[in-house]
């Protein structure tokens, strides 16, 4: 067998160099991470703090469930609004759909939206519409549009265009070719992104209440600020964990079924 002698640097492709740079930068950053400088019993502190979480206080279950319901409602409404807005905006951000003069301003707008974290959107919304669940819906809608519109446009750009071209060659107009050629191929992936966004928004909606934007976050804030309520805090966390796990499980099942159907492995 011929043994090939490749130069030593040939193994450093872009991926390898990026990984090395990441490793060097991470290790280089370690000395700048400092603690308080005091001699604290970290493990002792942790165990004493965590002990206050148990047992969870089940007496507040009703109140917690109603807060959780509001959280899920905020997530549902904001995800729906974000899907509609993202679909329209993503057309302007897709290279194979929009002309360059629409493409670049739209992409810049999406970059700008993504720069602002969900908690900051929530603060802005609370300032404008007051401390209520509408602020939560506005905040999460805007935050989600930044991501969903990007995911949608990337899906449109990476989807197989052959059926769209085939329909055009048979006389279909551009809107028809998109609706019956490109959209059916992109739709399963788009739905998959929407499900992920819904899961994400339930998580986010749980925390934006911390700044007054409705939902279970307000409960978390109240219990965290009163020193002897960590067992109530833990019940809220437990409820969030259950709902997020259920959503995650359902989302994965649905995504798998979509994948199988697209791969043609099921009837």
């Amino acid at each position, binding site marked *: 067998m011929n043994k090939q002698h490749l130069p030593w640097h040939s193994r450093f492709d872009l991926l390898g160099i990026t990984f090395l740079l990441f490793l060097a930068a991470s290790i280089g950053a370690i000395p700048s991470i400092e603690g308080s400088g005091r001699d604290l019993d970290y493990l002792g502190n942790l165990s004493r703090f965590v002990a206050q979480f148990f047992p969870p206080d089940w007496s507040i279950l009703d109140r917690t469930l109603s807060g959780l319901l509001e959280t899920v409602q905020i997530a549902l409404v904001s995800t729906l609004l974000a899907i509609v807005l993202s679909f329209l905006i993503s057309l302007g951000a897709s290279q194979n759909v929009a002309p360059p003069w629409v493409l670049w301003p739209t992409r810049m707008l999406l970059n700008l939206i993504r720069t602002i974290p969900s908690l900051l959107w929530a603060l802005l919304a609370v300032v404008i519409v007051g401390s209520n669940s509408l602020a939560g819906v506005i905040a999460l809608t805007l935050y989600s549009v930044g991501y969903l519109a990007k995911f949608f446009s990337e899906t449109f750009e990476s989807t197989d265009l052959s*059926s769209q071209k*085939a*329909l055009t060659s*048979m006389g279909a*107009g551009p809107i028809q070719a998109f609706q*019956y050629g490109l959209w*059916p191929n992109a739709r*399963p992936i788009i739905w998959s992104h929407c499900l992920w966004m819904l899961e994400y928004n339930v998580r986010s909606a749980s925390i934006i209440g911390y700044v007054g934007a409705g939902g279970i976050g307000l409960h978390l804030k109240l219990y965290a600020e009163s020193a002897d309520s960590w067992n109530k805090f833990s019940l809220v966390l437990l409820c969030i964990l259950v709902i997020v796990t259920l959503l995650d499980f359902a989302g994965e099942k649905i995504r798998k079924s979509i994948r199988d159907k697209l791969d*043609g492995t099921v009837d």
Partner: protein
Amino acid sequence: MSTNLLVAKDLGLHLSNRWLFRKLSFSVPGSSFVAITGPSGVGKTSLMRLLSGDLKGNEGNLESNLSTDEKISMIFQDLQLANGASTLANALGGCLGRHSSVRTLLGFPKQEKDSALNWLSQFGLAQKTRQWASTLSRGERQRLAICRSLISRPKLLLADEPVASLDNQWADETLSILKTNQLQTGGSLVCSLHDEEQVQKHADFVLRLHADEPESWSWENVAA
């Protein structure tokens, strides 16, 4: 025979640093079945694309006698179906050119649906109209692509190896349906085929391309 739908004169196509064919002259008469044969890679698909207007030749010219209302439709070798759409929606894609975007935004006219169901039934897909195209077998997908092209009611149907994934019985039946339909509507069929038996049985004319010899093509009237 009626008027020629297409007339090719001294056509030449140069792709990937080689001539696929040169000085190619033939015509596609109305109401006829023209078969194109030749080994894989000889340029059958490129010739089809050239006839459809998707490619431009490097020399010679191609004259079309089709009016603006008369369409050319192609059955693609790679089928080009919408995998996430139902069998029925894929088939109905063929009729989009006859309706405005507004009319088809929320669905298709009933007579188009009936016509599509009729074609799907003829091609053995009546029980699978609601299934996604991705869940069909290769042969079923090929028959679906054929339905879509037939529904577009082309004057000239270009079929790139339309029976490659079908068993002998379906292949024979498909070629018969394609030929009958095109001839009944006064149209023509240009079809690339590998099986000489199918050529002799169905074609009226055959254009044979030869590998590595771009100028040594031949044209034969097999119906005579």
